[in-house]
């Protein structure tokens, strides 16, 4: 049962004062094409799902070119209104020369082919930020700035960041990332960072989010890992951290300028199978390309992302996409992959999943078995989320009431 009473006096609450998360580019209507340019990274983050990182598998320009040629000559796979070319690793900026070459090729081909994606494309990066300041990266940014989105991952306080995000020799990377944050925020004002929570990070959530706000990062996109890493009692500690964070955000009125994705009005409600039966992610609608020129429905299906299963390849740069292998992804719905417990869950709204992790943890080689590893964490989040909104609404309600009281005599005076 939903315990939250959302709006006993809805007209009295002013939503304008609450900052909303920025909407995704083209509202997620765009195609995402991911180039896994390298499987190497300077860091060995402890929570990283990429279990097969290595320095050998680097994409060649020929592979990228052939894949782009296939994509742009395949109307069926390039009919979306817009496209995001995403570059990931490992650490993508380790391959900045290659990326620059690929981006130039994409732009040229879009122009030559008079493709509808010309002027409807973006280059997107998720980086550890260590090479952000280098000349080559800066030149690339300057060259492509109007079509670029870059997210630097900084995990919070130094303690929290260095708990997981360490170099191969064990040193923390916080200070090296931190020095690039001002430049990044100057070039991409309003950019958000991505924070990942694993079991060991939970006690640092509140101070980390506040720390990121203090650095000038206005949007903190934070989520728990999808892998089954949780220990008994983690959900309680998590809930307490979120409640502490909620108190701080409300008390300091940080909600006016900053967002934290853990708190959302859209989560924690029952979900109708009839009305909301879609899959949670876009696996299969997007696709990823690796150094060998193999295509995947998402990076999480490439071998370096998988602990237990074989890579799920849906095609390659020579033969194109095997349409039959896309069919399960494009018909994967909530009902078919969820257990009854999930379908009937009264707080299911916003409880996400990763199809790649589902596949990796499933009993059989299927994408139709949803992992329930995050169940308790989601429920803890919903409780804290309810607390946050009830507290914030009441605060705003009381503020509005006091403003209305002042306003009444004026109105009356006018009428007189």
């Amino acid at each position: 049962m939903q315990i939250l009473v959302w709006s006993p006096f809805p007209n009295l609450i002013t939503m304008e004062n609450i900052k909303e998360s920025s909407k995704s580019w083209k509202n997620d209507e765009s195609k995402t094409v991911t180039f896994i340019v390298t499987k190497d990274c300077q860091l060995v983050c402890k929570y990283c799902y990429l279990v097969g990182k290595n320095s050998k598998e680097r994409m060649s320009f020929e592979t990228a070119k052939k894949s782009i040629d296939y994509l742009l000559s395949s109307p069926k796979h390039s009919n979306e209104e817009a496209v995001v070319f995403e570059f990931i690793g490992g650490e993508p900026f380790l391959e900045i020369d290659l990326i620059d070459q690929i981006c130039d090729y994409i732009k040229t081909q879009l122009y030559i082919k008079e493709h509808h994606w010309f002027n409807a494309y973006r280059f997107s990066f998720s980086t550890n930020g260590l090479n952000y300041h280098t000349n080559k990266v800066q030149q690339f940014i300057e060259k492509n700035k109007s079509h670029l989105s870059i997210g630097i991952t900084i995990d919070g306080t130094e303690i929290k960041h260095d708990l997981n995000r360490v170099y191969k020799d064990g040193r923390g990377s916080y200070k090296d990332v931190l020095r690039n944050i001002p430049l990044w925020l100057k070039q991409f004002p309003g950019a958000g960072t991505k924070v990942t929570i694993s079991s060991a990070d939970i006690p640092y959530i509140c101070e980390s989010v506040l720390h990121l706000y203090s650095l000038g990062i206005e949007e903190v996109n934070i989520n728990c890992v999808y892998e089954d890493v949780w220990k008994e009692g983690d959900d309680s500690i998590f809930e307490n951290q979120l409640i502490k964070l909620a108190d701080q955000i409300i008390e300091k009125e940080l909600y006016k300028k900053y967002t934290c994705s853990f708190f959302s009005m859209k989560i924690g409600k029952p979900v109708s199978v009839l009305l909301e039966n879609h899959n949670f992610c876009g696996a299969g609608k997007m696709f990823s390309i690796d150094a060998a020129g193999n295509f995947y429905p998402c990076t999480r299906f490439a071998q370096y992302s998988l602990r237990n299963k074989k890579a799920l390849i849906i095609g390659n740069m020579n033969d194109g996409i095997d349409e039959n292998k896309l069919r399960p992804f494009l018909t994967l719905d909530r009902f078919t992959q969820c257990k009854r417990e999930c379908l009937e869950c009264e707080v299911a709204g916003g409880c996400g999943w990763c199809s790649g992790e589902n596949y990796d943890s499933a009993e059989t080689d299927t994408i139709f078995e949803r992992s329930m590893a995050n169940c308790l964490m989601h429920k803890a989040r919903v409780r804290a989320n309810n607390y946050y909104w009830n507290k914030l609404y009441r605060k705003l309600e009381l503020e509005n009431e006091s403003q209305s009281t002042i306003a009444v005599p004026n109105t009356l005076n006018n009428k007189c």
Partner: protein
Amino acid sequence: MIQYLIIQLCDTSTSYCHYNNCNKVSKLISIEDLKAGIILAMKENLMIQFVYPDEELTEEYKKIINSIDHNDIVSSLCKDKELVTSADVVVLHDWTALQYFQFSKTQSYVLRTSKDDFFDRHIMLKTVLPKTKRFNVVFTDMESFGEDDYEKYRKILGFLSDEVSNAFCEGNHVQCNLLTDRLELSVMNNCDAGWKNITLAPNGEFYICPAFYIDNASSVGDVYKGINIPNPQLYRLDYAPICLHCDSYQCKRCVWLNKKTTLEVNTPSHQQCVIAHLERNASRKLMENPKVVSTLKEPSEINEIDYLDPFDRRDKWDYEAMQKELIKFHKENY
């Protein structure tokens, strides 16, 4: 709920479906495992279907097999000619067999054929269909159907539909899976391997169907510990998103082909869907003959539709209609 137990008696047992069995080395199921399989079937009320190798079995095996009510599936090439004459289902592996084989009105037949052979020789079915109780055509290379092949297949089904129609007019109610199965179906009637039937292989272990055994897939239990299918729901119709929006009720919905082509047992390939819809539409054409309809106990309603693959219209899927279909299906099946 499992209702049928298929016992693959030997590694060289004939294939009666889409898969090819290339095993040449004979390895029979052990007497102990065979007996244990039969006892399990008796306890669980399972109907047994034995699938035979071409070599004749010893009297010891025959005696055990005959200790329980069962069906026999055998190749036309089996050396045990008495068995070929008495079997419930006889499998023909090439079209030349159609010329010399002595068909019987008491037996059902499976013709395993490549797409190209079917296109070249389908005319032979005209004379064979009326001689049989039931005649099934199974493609051994369904995944190779391409866009050009669909039109050819549609035309051939049209030709065969006319022939079947003529046979009905002459009082001969022929049965051919490609054309007549859909006439009286109002819910899905598929192979249902892993859901309504399971296979006991010569190694004493259970598999979803013989094709999974031949392909060296993981077993799903053994004859002593019992059947243990992981993710069993995925073999059921209600967990097959495309099939739930389909009325080609006669489709085999082969989970092995699904796995082979789409990597998921619950998701059919484009080829599977188009072929099943062409057959459905040919059945619809057959029902235009009042004499055909008059012979049916419960003629099915087959509406005109403008698609051949439900996947292509997934944006228009009607989930409320789907729920009604599911309720109807559950009433029929549980």
